[in-house]
């Protein structure tokens, strides 16, 4: 059931991201918020499948193949996932910093992979205000996502 819910709602999250991009004077990158939850909150075993669906949805709704989006999102997630062992990922400055990395890296990686594979991709790149706004808001938005279905049921419960 949770997978079905994820399949239905992940594309809507991208549309909400697009809607905010039209409404807000700055870019609040909901894609980075999602990547934050996948990297630091979800069970690592589920991350690949969750990411794959997001990548497929981005492939349909945005430019570029799903493989391109999987690499652009998956590489930073794979790089940051082991940080859970050395950092307190619930500490909000850590989460803000990780979000900042996603906001900057994902659009750039998307363009790089698009150029390498000869595809068209023109992700929205946030300005400084957008990066800061996303870094500030992401920890709170991620906390909400982590508690709500469907991502709530994929969240990792950590024994400390």
């Amino acid at each position, binding site marked *: 059931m949770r997978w079905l819910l994820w399949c239905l709602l992940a594309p809507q999250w991208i549309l909400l991201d697009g809607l905010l991009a039209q409404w807000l004077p700055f870019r609040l990158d909901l894609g980075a918020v999602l990547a934050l939850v996948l990297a630091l909150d979800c069970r690592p075993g589920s991350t690949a499948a969750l990411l794959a669906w997001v990548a497929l949805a981005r492939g349909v709704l945005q430019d570029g193949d799903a493989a391109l989006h999987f690499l652009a999102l998956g590489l930073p997630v*794979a790089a940051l996932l082991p940080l859970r062992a050395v950092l307190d990922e619930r500490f909000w400055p850590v989460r803000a910093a990780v979000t900042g990395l996603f906001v900057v890296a994902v659009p750039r990686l998307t363009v790089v992979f698009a150029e390498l594979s000869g595809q068209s991709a023109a*992700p929205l790149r946030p300005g400084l205000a957008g990066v800061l706004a996303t870094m500030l808001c992401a920890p709170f938005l991620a906390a909400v996502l982590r508690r709500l279905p469907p991502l709530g049921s994929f969240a990792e419960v950590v024994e400390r």
Partner: protein
Amino acid sequence: MIQTRSSLRTLFPVSLYAGLLVAVLALLQPQAVRGVEGWSAVAIAQPLRFWTGFDLTAHRVGAERREAGQRDVARRVESLLHRLDRTAPARPGTVVDQRHLPTVRAVVERRGGVRGWPSRLVLDVRRDALADAAHLVTRGTALVGFLDPDPVPERDERGRPDRWAGHAQVRLLHDHGAEGLPRRVPARLRVEDSDAPALAFLVEPASALDRLPLRCALFDDPYRAARLRRTDLEVETSGLADDPLGVVPQGLGLGSLEIYGYSDGGLAVPIGVYVRPHHRSASLSHVVLWTTLSVPDEVRRLRAGAWSARRVALRLTRLPVPTDVRFRWMAALRDDGFESLPVGAAVVDGERLIGVLESTGPGFGMVAPFGQPGRIWSLVLERGTGDGAGIVEVQARGEVRQAGQVMLRRIGDEELPAPGAEVFTAGAGPDEPPFLWVGRLVAVDGERFVVEHVEAAAVPHELDALIGGGSAR
């Protein structure tokens, strides 16, 4: 369930790294995962069809305005075709007799080749209707290739039925031939300011590693060839009288000379001599055949309206997405049916191109609007008016789309016309016919140019998709 982080598998999930590896392979071989992507697209997009029931952002365009627009388009296309007719090519020597007339034929699909140089062109005419056609295929004063004696086969390389089976196809000069036997053309260098005899050689298809599609071989005077320095020379056919592969008349243009080699004070000591064709095969919208058919009838058939594509009624919804363009149109069949729409089908308002379909599935498709950043578009631009009028075919990559204007960057070195020229499609596949009107050229700055295109907010809610089904003949 309580999990601990003691194991490395938790921190380095195998599934994620395996997924990344598969993604790299999929990026290199996209056709291997097309099926999975196609089915996923259906699963993702079908729920989104819910939104097409809400006409929240699309605007309706009044019937009067659309009708006026249609009249404009018809007039423009008619004018363009008149020019095409007037700029009909020079008669290629004695190979075609006076009974043969130039017949302009549209290119419906480009195939084969490497690095943006397709090597075969499928035409909008059946091969059996060209029984009396000369083997030469020209454009203006240039030889572009040879008419294949065989039609497009019933099935493609993978054994699937070919939608253009029976159609005529042109093997361009850089095509390596059906059995790997390329057609070499006897050529010479046109040196107008020199008393020396022309340098003779053969022009043949270059290898896949070369930067240009044609190269020169077997020079009659290798010493002179090694001393070539100028790259502005025109290469033309030399008209070898007893060419065993069929006579090619002399004086037909093949392209301009390009020399690659070691640097020698700004020049190059040749190690490879190439020919840059006059026309980029990726943007060739039409070619000229020499047949005994009537010219005006044939030219009129190129009208966008006369294309045999079927029109399918669509309903468009603007979806907000986080890209540079900030929206994506989703098209659904107006009758809520589930007919599969082909990728690449032109989405049109009358005869005006709005965009092309991507990520399609049963009854729906996502629309890439004209000028979508990063996407390559094949275009035909009018050049001038009056006696010197003609057309320029260019391939261009979309850069910015904003406020009803699209900035594109030319690929190649064609001279762009002055602002004010009308812009049409050059045809990009079986479902995107040539000579669909796009808009007006409003600015040219070096290799960049701006085309006025319909504002996203003014795109009508109800449009059509063109689905090619082959030509009527």
